[in-house]
């Protein structure tokens, strides 16, 4: 089993209309139930918008704290899943469900299998 990150790429800007979000929430709930039933669920959560982000850097052993996301772009990561899957095809199958539910592109990335540190 490999752990995969499924990240939702969301365009910047305000939230979509509430009736649209309702159907997205329904589909996401169904998908998460499926993940749990299949034993593939590890973690999933949506994120607050990039305007709530803070970046920390250390220079000369001193923390520098700045407002805002690390990278400003047209899209940001709106939320993510961590799932267990036997191979990439299985992970892509879940990503497809996620893309259908959110109508947004989903980036799939494998986690390193053994903690390196």
């Amino acid at each position: 089993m490999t752990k995969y990150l499924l990240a939702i790429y969301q365009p910047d800007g305000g939230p979509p209309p509430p009736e649209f979000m309702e159907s997205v929430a329904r589909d996401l709930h169904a998908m998460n139930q499926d993940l749990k039933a299949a034993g593939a669920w590890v973690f999933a959560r949506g994120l607050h918008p990039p305007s709530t982000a803070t970046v920390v850097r250390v220079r000369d052993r001193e923390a520098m704290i700045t407002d805002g996301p690390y990278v400003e772009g047209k899209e940001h990561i709106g939320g993510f899943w961590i799932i267990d899957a036997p191979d990439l095809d299985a992970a892509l199958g879940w990503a497809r469900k996620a893309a259908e539910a959110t109508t947004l592109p989903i980036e799939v990335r494998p986690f390193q299998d053994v903690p390196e540190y």
Partner: protein
Amino acid sequence: MFRAEHGRAVAVLIRVFGDIDVAEEAVADAFTAAVQRWPADGLPPSPAGWIITTARNRAIDRLRRQASRADRHAQAALLHARDEPIEEGPVQDERLRLIFTCCHPALGRGAQVALTLRLLGGLTTTEIARAFLVPEPTMAQRLVRAKGKIRDAGIPYRVPAAADLPGRLQSVLAVVYLIFNEGYTASSGPALVRADLCAEAIRLGRQLALLMPDETEVPGLLALMLLVESRRAARTTAGGNLVPLADQDRNRWDADLIAEGQAIVRDCLRRNDPGVYQIQAAINAVHSEARSAQSTDWPQIVQLYDHLSTYDRSPVVALNRAVAVAEVAGAEAALALVDGLDLGTYHLFHAIRADLLRRLGRDVEARAAYETAITLTDNAAERDFLCQRRQSLGE
């Protein structure tokens, strides 16, 4: 022997060790050993079996040495080998698994092509780099990155389930056809044709046709490649200049390849499960039946293009259909079709337009269209041909 057995051996060894690099190294070792031993000892009863067994034993020896130095990769590969008994039987399935891995949609097309030629074709990185005119370090890096993604992202060695097979097979067929086309009209460079790539694509096509006899598009692609390949000798002059289909000496077409291709097309027609490769093969079969360009059954070719456009609405198909329409309904009708296509950056669009304008006596426009076509092609033989055509119109 090397080309024929390399893909099979690598596929089996990847299955055994679960690691592409270990498999490649082991197979290379075994072939080196074969070169040293066989001339003196004579050919073993089953050369392919000898290669696979030797490769497996040598890899295990090597991995044991590495594993004792606490190399995690080597330990994992050894562990995998213990659980995977070596199967002497259905080794063909291993190659099929491997080509679906090489052509997995999670890999870029360039990586799919390079991996297929490397692992199934047994071409060296140098040969692949030369074939695609990229620097060798670039190609080496592309292969390393692709193999790394297969390993780390967990791209499986598996023939896809029936539900996914049509889509995934498209990607495999596209890779094989791309290798063929790159060989048939090298996208750049001095020679029009790079025969080695055509031969490799046909070899892969034959393997696939043996391995997946129930998927009609697989023999369809093979027939298409055979029929196109049959014209290779007639397609260039001794000096390397391009000869268009209408002017080719049809006695120089390869009768054996034509017979084989036509037989496959007939078989496909009987099975009545058409697809884009089978229809294109049928179009080429019609050409191969005609003793001259004039005696070609052009109405049937137009019909086949009509059929093809129901599967593939791309303007390139419409452009090729227009060429056939010119023979049935005249250059004027064809030009009207061509002018409606959005293919301004495709050199053949301008070349075909130029030819139609020339046939209509509109020389000034024809010259301009040839000029545009010439600036858009990177293949030297095609460019020379277009230059000659333009010059024949005078200044």
